[in-house]
């Protein structure tokens, strides 16, 4: 049966008088890609920030692997298996691909006290890093400085860094932004390949891609959920057609 890894319950975030996220509840299951779509400013990124712990919610709770993690700071949630990527490229440009992944993998085995040890000599983090890079299709680029990668490769590296932390849940903020057709294909293939073991939340603007890959779709307008269901249900939902799809023609 399906296994819920992350559950957001009645999450709300207010900025002064503005409600950026309004009582949003959702569940992420292992093996599923759950897409959140909505216009700019609909509150999608804020939702990711609430789930990952980057922002404290005004109200509502987050449950990770059955535990209430609402009070946990972001790093603790991350170590407990919550990985996220960012809209902007956040890879470390002066590090190589391998170092980027290794640094991410290190989050699980931090060993900060071992000041005499060479970070690169740490076998388990090295293995995790190589594994993550391989799954993201970057094995050939391991020794290349991240700043020199193409845009698509940087996005892949983002995913690889997420994977390197050994997460259960992946929160991906527009992984396809700014990609060409070929790069998009590669990324979708990558997501399809990793989804079996993870629960994935996908915030994305590329509708074709979303409807191709998503198992569930949640539509947000002005911070609130107006529809949620399978791609077919969402496609046929009248509110969605008016509020969102209609505009796009």
């Amino acid at each position, binding site marked *: 049966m399906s296994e819920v890894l992350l559950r957001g319950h009645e999450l709300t975030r207010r900025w002064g008088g503005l409600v950026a996220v309004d009582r949003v509840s959702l569940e992420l299951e292992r093996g599923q890609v759950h897409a959140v779509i909505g216009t700019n400013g609909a509150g999608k990124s804020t939702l990711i920030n609430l789930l990952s712990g980057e922002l404290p919610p005004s109200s509502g709770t987050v449950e990770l692997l059955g535990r209430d993690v609402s009070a946990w700071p972001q790093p603790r949630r991350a170590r407990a298996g919550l990985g996220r990527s960012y809209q902007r490229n*956040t890879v470390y440009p002066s590090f190589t691909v391998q170092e980027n992944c290794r640094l991410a993998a290190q989050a699980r085995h*931090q060993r*900060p006290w071992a000041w005499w040890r060479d970070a690169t000599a740490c076998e388990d983090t090295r293995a995790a890093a190589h594994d993550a890079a391989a799954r993201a299709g970057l094995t050939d680029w391991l020794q290349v400085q991240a*700043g020199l990668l193409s845009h698509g490769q940087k996005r892949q590296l983002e995913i690889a860094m997420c994977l390197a932390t050994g997460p259960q849940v992946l929160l991906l903020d527009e992984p396809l932004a700014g990609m060409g057709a070929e790069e998009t294909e590669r990324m979708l293939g990558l997501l399809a390949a990793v989804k079996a073991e993870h629960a994935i939340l996908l915030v994305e603007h590329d509708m074709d891609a979303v409807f191709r890959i998503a198992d569930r779709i949640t539509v947000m307008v002005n911070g609130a959920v107006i529809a949620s269901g399978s791609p077919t249900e969402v496609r046929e939902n009248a509110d969605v057609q008016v509020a969102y799809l209609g505009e796009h023609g």
Partner: protein
Amino acid sequence: MSMKTIFVFTCFAALVLWPLSAGSYGIDLVTKIMIYAILALSLELAVGTTGLVCFGQAGFFGIGAYAAVLLSPQGEAAALWWLLPACVVAAGLYAMVVGALSLRTKGVYFIMVTLAFAQMAYYVVHDTSLGGGTDGIYLTMKPVLGDWLDLDKPLVMYAFTLLGLMLAFAFLSLLLRSPFGRALAGIRVNEQRMRATGFSTYPYKLAAFTLSGAMAGFAGFLFAVKDGFVNPELMSWHQSGAVLVMIILGGLGHLRGALIGAFAFALLQELFQNEAVFGAFAKHWHLGLGLTIIASVALLPRGLVGVLGQLRERLVGRPMRRGAAPIAEVRP
């Protein structure tokens, strides 16, 4: 062996051989510069490595120096084996308190809070009789280690300082390669990302800041022992500013930069003050120093460390293999 390693080894070899050719003044001068190099290294750990721009390093330096004087018993020499660690711990403790509080702030605000805490230390010794007030206080007996280490002899002091510098450098080199150091590097470039990856960044930053302060305290201890005299001016913001200038001049993000910067800054002062070179104009040596600094900013965007790379680019047109990553944003 990389160019980097060769450079560092050459430098240290030169420092080891220096007393053979230098007079007693040369030995004193280089001892002083090496103490400042340790101070610069300590700041490099905070600023260049972790991205914490500390404008109060002189506070920790001064606390190390004052601790050396105040903890020494009256009329007899203290034992080095406990005095040195005590000074380092004193400075480190203060750094820990300052860091614990000031790490709540970011950017320029952080710069100013660290300055504030250094100024507090400054005024405590300046305005109270605790440490002799404005006239400063003497360290009458230099610390000893058994009978065989006499820090009163300039050559012994030189060797001791050089050893300290080497150990500091080696320690930091190892530290930066270690998991801890890599995490600091990550925090410098993008702290948010590090948190999202699972690093609780606050303890990392606090640890780095405390280490940095403790190392500055070590430099302060050496300073007090070398001069036998400490004064509130050790903690003044001019000192903090000067060390910051050293590491920027040398090139941020490199341990070598701190070394080069400390030497360049001190030697430039020596040069422009030298009457044999500049005659009557030596009196206006600030002008020469200032213009040189301005020129170096204009011409050497990566600091003195980057000079070779820049030359190579100019000659061969090949980009550096590894550009220095930008320092954490200072802008609000």
